[in-house]
């Protein structure tokens, strides 16, 4: 296929496809800016500054800030991922038609990857441009002589290779993600065209989750086993990251399996029509449940880890120093922002789900289903698979934190320097905070789905009966 | 049964049998007559001929006279050109029908004129004739279901005498023959140089053959049940 043909295929599309491209670019831009900020803070050294905030001045605190900023990127990337699913059913059908006309699996993957790659690339470049311009604009004019205390590290520019890595990395990630998402179209195009049901994997996600969660819970034991105490911290960090990724994948994929199982369990037993519709939908489209919930689950997972870490670290360190408390407050804020971004992604997804299923909604409405029933069905469909997922994510997170940092703290306490005694404290489980995390994310999901349901009125208009399902 | 009903039944049976026999002519009986095909007469559909004979030749001639006066020879030529699927009209029939129409007051004969040799009598439609023609044209043809289906007669007899396998075998072979004929008509219809009249005639044949085919398919599904029924309830 020639490049011009590839471009033509990639840019063919309706309004929904344009929205998708724009949103992907936007998400990539936001992600780029966030990562560039994180990188800037990370490279701010002792020679720069001075800065107002302690967080920036003291280089030991940088890892905390960097982590917080990097955490924000996970939901942003998830948002970009969800944006790339806007209008996906129509796009998948189009690509499946291409496959039936003779395009190979590689061909269609290249088409979709080109679209996301170009969109994300444009977004990343735009983000870089915004970052550089903002740096220049936010940099206050230095008065001659004397030291000037800055609020933001606008005098620091990350090294060029760092900039390149981010600006090139985000499009690459977006491309990989879209190639992965197209697996089904690439392999079984006829299944897509004839809307054959997909059965989500049940064993693999469960295994992933168990290995990841179990590994993190027994982290210290693993470290001892592999005798990595003496090695630099990087090895431990890598292992932790690998386990974290496994657990995350297991959670996200597992939601699809949970949706299917729940749907099959509920469908023959419920009486209320909205639950019946919801459970049938869960059986028919389990994968949409995992797409919707991925960002929220990740945010809850990270949030739970942070809650556990917070308790532990606050006990270990000197309680008079407010720094650690401040850092954790900052991280809490970051997690809250992350959940908010995840909710935005959910809003995008829910609205897109309603719009792309408008023919079946319109058919249901036309045959007499009252709109409140449809609304309740949509809410149930989104929330029911999410509840076990969120609880599992919180549990995994807290287990991970306790596994890595330990459940017992030994410290020397005493009134005077001579009279020091070994005190062993058990770190409690922060039930309240976890409850707030779980309940808050579920409540936010509810609210965003309800907002997305505002589209339902338009979607159930009888003229939508002629739209593509 | 009243004798009148019996006669009517018989007439319908004969007509129906003739029509269907015409449609399936040549499929079971060996070729007894072959028609020479000349330009403009590619289809010698005896079915159409039968239909033409079902309707009155008189009405058809009246219609041809609606355009203006004609003499007998012109009428025959025009008939053959406009209805290529029908059997060519014989002169005797033309003149006999014209005479019948004249006696009924539907056409009038003008004085003979000598044209290129033989005497030719031009005929014109009278006002009464025009009325009659228009009445006939707007009259709806009552669709008559054929009371006797020769195919089902064969199937019933096959089941009674030889059993299911023979009946099914007959139905399958009949189906093949039907489809083969449908193929021929389809090919004819698809030719770019077929006239509209030929296409219409082929359409008619195809529709009827398709109807028979559907009946054959249904019969194949039901032949087992029919067999049971035939052998369980004795004939009164």
């Amino acid at each position, binding site marked *: *296929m*020639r490049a*011009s*043909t590839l471009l*033509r295929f990639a840019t*063919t*599309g309706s309004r929904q*496809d344009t929205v998708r491209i724009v949103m992907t670019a936007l998400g990539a831009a936001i992600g780029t800016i966030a990562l560039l900020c994180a990188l800037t803070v990370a490279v701010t050294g002792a020679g720069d500054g001075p800065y107002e905030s302690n967080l920036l001045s003291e280089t030991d605190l940088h890892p905390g800030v960097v982590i917080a900023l990097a955490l924000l990127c996970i939901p942003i990337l998830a948002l970009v991922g969800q944006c790339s699913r806007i209008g996906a059913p129509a796009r998948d059908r*189009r690509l499946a*038609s*291409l*496959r*039936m*006309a*003779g*395009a*190979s*699996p*590689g*061909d269609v993957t290249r088409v979709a990857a080109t679209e996301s790659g170009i969109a994300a690339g444009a977004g990343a470049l735009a983000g870089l441009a915004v970052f550089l311009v903002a740096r220049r604009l936010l940099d206050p004019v230095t008065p001659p002589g004397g030291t000037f205390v800055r609020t933001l590290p606008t005098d620091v520019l990350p090294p060029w290779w760092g900039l390149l890595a981010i600006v090139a990395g985000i499009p690459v990630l977006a491309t990989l993600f879209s190639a992965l998402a197209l697996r089904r179209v*690439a*392999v079984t195009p*006829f299944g897509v*065209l004839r809307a054959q049901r997909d059965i989500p994997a049940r064993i693999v996600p469960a295994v992933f989750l168990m290995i990841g969660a179990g590994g993190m819970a027994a982290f210290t034991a693993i470290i001892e086993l592999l005798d990595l105490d003496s090695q630099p911290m990087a090895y431990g960090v890598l292992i932790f990251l690998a386990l974290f990724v496994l657990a995350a994948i297991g959670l996200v994929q597992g939601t699809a399996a949970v949706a299917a199982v729940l749907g099959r369990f509920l469908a023959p037993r419920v009486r209320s029509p909205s639950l019946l519709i919801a459970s049938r939908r869960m059986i028919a489209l389990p994968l949409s449940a995992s797409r919707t919930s991925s960002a929220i689950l990740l945010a809850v997972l990270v949030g739970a880890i942070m809650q556990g870490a917070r308790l532990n670290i606050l006990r270990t360190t000197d309680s008079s120093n407010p720094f650690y408390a401040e850092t954790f407050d900052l991280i809490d804020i970051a997690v809250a922002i992350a959940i908010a971004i995840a909710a935005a992604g959910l809003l995008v997804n829910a609205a897109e789900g309603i719009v792309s299923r408008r023919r079946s909604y319109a058919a249901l409405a036309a045959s007499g289903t009252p709109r409140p029933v449809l609304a309740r069905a949509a809410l149930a469909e989104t929330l029911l698979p999410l509840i076990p997922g969120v609880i599992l994510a919180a549990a995994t997170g807290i287990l991970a934190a306790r596994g890595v940092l330990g459940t017992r703290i030994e410290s020397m306490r005493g009134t005077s320097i001579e009279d020091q005694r070994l005190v062993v404290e058990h770190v409690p489980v922060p039930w309240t905070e976890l409850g707030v995390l779980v309940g808050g994310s579920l409540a936010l999901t509810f609210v965003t789905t309800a907002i997305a349901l505002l589209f339902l009125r338009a979607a159930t208009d009888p003229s939508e009966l002629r739209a593509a399902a | 049964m009243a004798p009148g009903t019996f006669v009517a039944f018989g007439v319908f049976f004969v007509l129906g049998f*003739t029509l269907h*026999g*015409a449609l399936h*002519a*040549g499929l079971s*009986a*060996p*070729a*007894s*007559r*072959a*028609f020479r*095909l000349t330009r403009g007469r*590619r*289809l*010698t*559909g*005896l079915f159409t001929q*039968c239909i033409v004979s079902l309707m009155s030749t008189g009405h058809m001639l009246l219609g041809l006279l609606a355009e203006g006066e004609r003499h007998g020879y012109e009428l025959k030529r025009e008939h053959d050109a406009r209805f290529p699927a029908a059997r060519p009209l014989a002169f005797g029939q033309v003149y006999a029908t014209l005479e019948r129409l004249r006696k009924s007051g539907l056409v009038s004969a003008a004085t003979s004129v000598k044209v290129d040799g033989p005497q030719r009598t031009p005929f014109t439609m009278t006002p009464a004739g025009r009325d009659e023609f228009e009445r006939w044209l707007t009259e709806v043809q009552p669709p008559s279901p054929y009371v006797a289906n020769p195919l089902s007669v064969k199937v019933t007899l096959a089941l009674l005498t030889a059993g299911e396998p023979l009946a099914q075998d007959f139905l*399958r072979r009949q189906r*093949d023959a039907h*489809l083969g004929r*449908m*193929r*021929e*008509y*389809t*090919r*004819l*219809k*698809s030719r770019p140089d077929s006239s509209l009249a030929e296409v219409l005639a082929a359409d008619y044949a*195809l529709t009827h*053959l*398709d109807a028979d*085919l*559907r009946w054959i398919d249904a019969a194949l599904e039901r032949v087992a049940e029919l067999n049971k029924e035939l052998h369980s309830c004795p004939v009164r």
Partner: protein
Amino acid sequence: MPGSMTLPDHIHSPETPRETVLSGRALVKDYGNAPALRGVSVELGRGEILAVTGPSGSGKSTLLLCMAGVLRPDAGEVHFQGRRIDTDSETDRSLLRRDSFGVLFQFGQLITEMTAAENVALPLLLSGARRRPAMMTARDWLRRFGVEALADQLPTQMSGGQSQRVAVARALVTEPAVLFADEPTAALDTVAGEQVMTELTRVARETGTAVLLVTHDARVAAYGDREIVVRDGLCSS
């Protein structure tokens, strides 16, 4: 008794034997709840139009999809031009669909966001042709089917019969060895359907393309040279 009827000789189909271009042997396909094919064998000669009929649900569409390489049969073999194709990879089978096979369904195969000409040019573009020559060829083919006026219109702006003719043009644009048509006229009215079938058979004979035509309508099956009946996953006649 009425006599027989004779049509001109060239109306009868030629009885010359053809070499087999596509064959399926003892094909079995099971979808889980019921076996769709239980051992069907089919041979398609070069340039031959074969009608596959049977009641709905009998497995005719499954047979077509297995022969076209869209579905992999659970048992049996499919050979094309002497080579076995059912064991090919998905990439190889899609290459076959691009160059040697054309597929035509009841509906839903045109890309609704592209014009008719672009749709017809699709297989050519996928093979790496340049845009301008591909579009010119596409327009020629649309002309061949009498729909060149629709070249710059979207499929949603056409009637069913028109979009099916565009779909036939796309299926035949690469002059494939075999065209697979699955109930191509089922969604059309009689006249539109006849138009599609007449054009399809005419051009297929011109290009020497063999046609595997699945239909439940005897009048459509009558466009073929030969017929096989599939009933309950098995072949009769």
